[in-house]
């Protein structure tokens, strides 16, 4: 966190591969830059691109840890590039694209398509009772419920949890941590009319919560600190109570 250990010379090893270029093969490329105070990987990578290799591909948008664009493997750990301060890292920084997602090039991967498919599969939207009535006052909801939904809604779909999960890495069908979190988010929303049986079908299988074998990396890695493990426990118990009913 501290921005004070400047004067280091940072060594980057960055994964390079441009699928659009027939001459390109996957390899690691080395760069060296001087560390600056409060330097984030957002700043470092832009400097590398602007001063050393303008062909380097990576994704940033908000640069404030809120849009979820910049997930990448930083020394083996899925992290948000914009949030990662170089002062928290050793001198040698290895960067890889997130696994699981389709590679666009270098550090850039297609998370958007993965998340859209996940949303479609789990029908991640409010299944409303009736059409919106513009003349009516809003339905009430107590603030605790709203807060609970919001806690789950905070996921920024960065894909770090998915990349960190052993199961998601080997099974394309698994909804993944973020997917399970989405299901939980809608299942606890009183505005969603899907009943227990609907949820049971979605949750209770090896693509759902029983795909999770409790590796717990997702929870430890989530940059938004979502309580993912509590979410799975909630889903498991929901599946069990539904079946017992």
């Amino acid at each position, binding site marked *: 966190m501290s921005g004070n250990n400047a004067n280091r010379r940072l060594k980057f090893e960055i994964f390079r591969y441009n699928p659009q270029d027939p001459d390109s093969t996957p390899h690691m490329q080395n760069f060296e830059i001087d560390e600056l105070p409060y330097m984030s990987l957002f700043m470092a990578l832009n400097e590398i691109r602007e001063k050393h290799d303008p062909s380097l591909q990576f994704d940033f*948008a908000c640069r404030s840890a809120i849009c979820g664009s910049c997930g990448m493997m930083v020394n083996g750990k899925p992290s948000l590039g914009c949030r990662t301060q170089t002062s928290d890292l050793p001198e040698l920084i290895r960067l890889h694209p997130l696994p699981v997602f389709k590679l666009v*090039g270098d550090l850039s991967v297609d998370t*958007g398509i993965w998340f859209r498919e996940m949303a479609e599969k789990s029908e991640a939207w409010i299944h409303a009772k009736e059409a919106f009535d513009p003349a009516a006052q*809003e339905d009430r909801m107590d603030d605790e419920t709203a807060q609970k939904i919001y806690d789950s809604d905070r996921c920024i779909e960065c894909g770090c949890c998915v990349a960190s999960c052993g199961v998601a890495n080997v099974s394309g069908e698994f909804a993944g941590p973020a997917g399970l979190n989405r299901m939980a988010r809608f299942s606890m929303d009183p505005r969603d009319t899907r009943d227990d049986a609907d949820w049971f079908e979605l949750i209770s299988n090896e693509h759902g919560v029983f795909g999770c074998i409790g590796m717990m990396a997702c929870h430890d890695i989530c940059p938004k600190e979502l309580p993912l493990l509590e979410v799975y426990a909630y889903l498991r118990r929901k599946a069990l109570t539904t079946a017992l009913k």
Partner: protein
Amino acid sequence: MIVRISSTDVLVIGGGLAGERCAIEAAAAGHDVLILSLVPPRRSHSCAAQGGMQAALGNCVKAEGDSPDVHYLDTVRGSDWGADQEVARIFAEEAPIAVRELAHFGVPWTRVKGGPNSYFIRGERVEINEALENDGLIMHRDFGGTAKWRACYAGAGTGHSALYAVDSEVVRLGVTVRDRAEAVELIHENGRCYGAVSRCLRTGQHSAILAKATVIATGGHGRIYGQYTTNATINEGMGAAIALNTGVVPLGNMEAVQFHPTALSPSGILVTEGCRGDGGFLLDKELNRFMVEAEPEKQELASRDVVSRHMARRMRDGHGVETEHGPHLWLDIRHLGEEHLKTKLREVWDICQDFVGLNPATDLIPVRPTQHYSMGGVRVNKEGEAYNLAGLVAVGEASCWDMHGFNRLGGNSLAETIVSGRLIGRHIAKTIRTGGVDIDTRVANEAVKNAEERAARLLAAEGPGPGAYEIRDAMAEVMISRVGIFRTGEELALAVNELKELLAKCDKIVLRSKVPGMNPELTFALRIKNMVRLSLITAMGAFARTESRGAHFRSDHPLRDDAKWLNRTLIRWPESSDAPGISYEPVGVLDVPPGHRGYGRDERIEMEQSIEDYNQGVEQAQSEQGKLPTEGQQ
């Protein structure tokens, strides 16, 4: 070369709140809709909005007596009478509906807790009993420049939750989204727009998308200020630019640029106005609450332009905390307590921890005013239709629908995106013509070829020449130092000249990387000329406007001048001309006569014309400027 052409009924360029809300309306009406976006829609910059969304629901005690009328008045005052008051009226009336609809789409709005609640108001802790009968309704928080608590919010992630809810509707309706795609040129002929040329950001390939209606919803263009902005790196204004590049569509009020008082120093990352709304203070180097003296009435919660200027002055007068990155002031939210910070201002908590490594419950936050919002954009009429080009529509921050005039109120722009998206989307759905797109594919082919040639030329250029990033840095320095919070004729003239030089340089750019496919340097180089063009017209508009209104402050003309400048700047850049042309139109029919805003300076040059005379001239003057007649209204 084969040109890829596809077609759709409605092409929406931009997957932020405005674009998606608009797309939903058209798709729900059964039209075929295609959304283009630089990033997956949920990563659009709308997701970064934290504080809230204005809508006069009047649900809590401090919002009692609120109504669309009061909201409307606040908006007009906030705009420093630069807004189109008719639009502001429509907006204020529709905002409650649009916000409630978001609840229907799933936004977990923070709710009223009936019974005793403890708030911070003007620096003091206050106990307020919320009516039990309001328990569970949508809660409000205080924001700058408003008479009532009106901002509806979901923690400090309002934009995030709203965008996710709206996008989940887009998914539900099965609307096609093409992400990592950039609209680089509009396809148009004889005063009609037929779609756009899209560049795929995975492969670098161009294709044409033909549409009966084309919507620009590309958000703000804060990045013309380089790193001195709260905006995302993708807010480069390409939507406004491609409209400008048609040569016929004017951009409105580009000189109206908002600076937000509390961006982190030095990164420029925003800390929401909700911090001050919830009771936070601004402190100077000596830890004085200078805003109490400067604005006894509204204190920290005067409008953004006013607060930003007070801050800038304070720092200029030597009361800023000096650092190697320049001076800053402090935001103090320690007294709100950890519990409040971790729930109602959770995103602020995170940002402080992550980006400056401090704990807002015990530490002061270093802040300074930073470019934040573009009031200017593609000038459109009430129905969202661009001037002079049928079939082209603009919504959201990219547009100048003009409810914000010269200063937008906090929370009004999220509300604008969904209100205008909803209304204008509906208008498109109603007025769109049936049958195929009637266009000679030659026009589309040509547009694609144009775009391809531009890219090829850049790739082919060899030898010494300026780099695209160099030009960007130079542009940013000009903008922040000469077209910033305080402006003078002298500085602005210099800015115009310097930007012209930079523009000339853009044609000499030489790329260092020639890799095929998605070449990031090429992608940026293709944008930089457009960005310099936007910068230039911003500086020109500011130079020409010899008054101070809202966020546009001329130290050499410090008064608002309603006699001469109660109007909107329109800038067009005719094709084949190397200089843009400026013209003006009345702001719109006046309902609230120009007056004092209730904060800031109460001195101005009064109107000479009578309101009646002014209003009578509006319709004709705007029509002359190219406001399109509204087709197909029942």
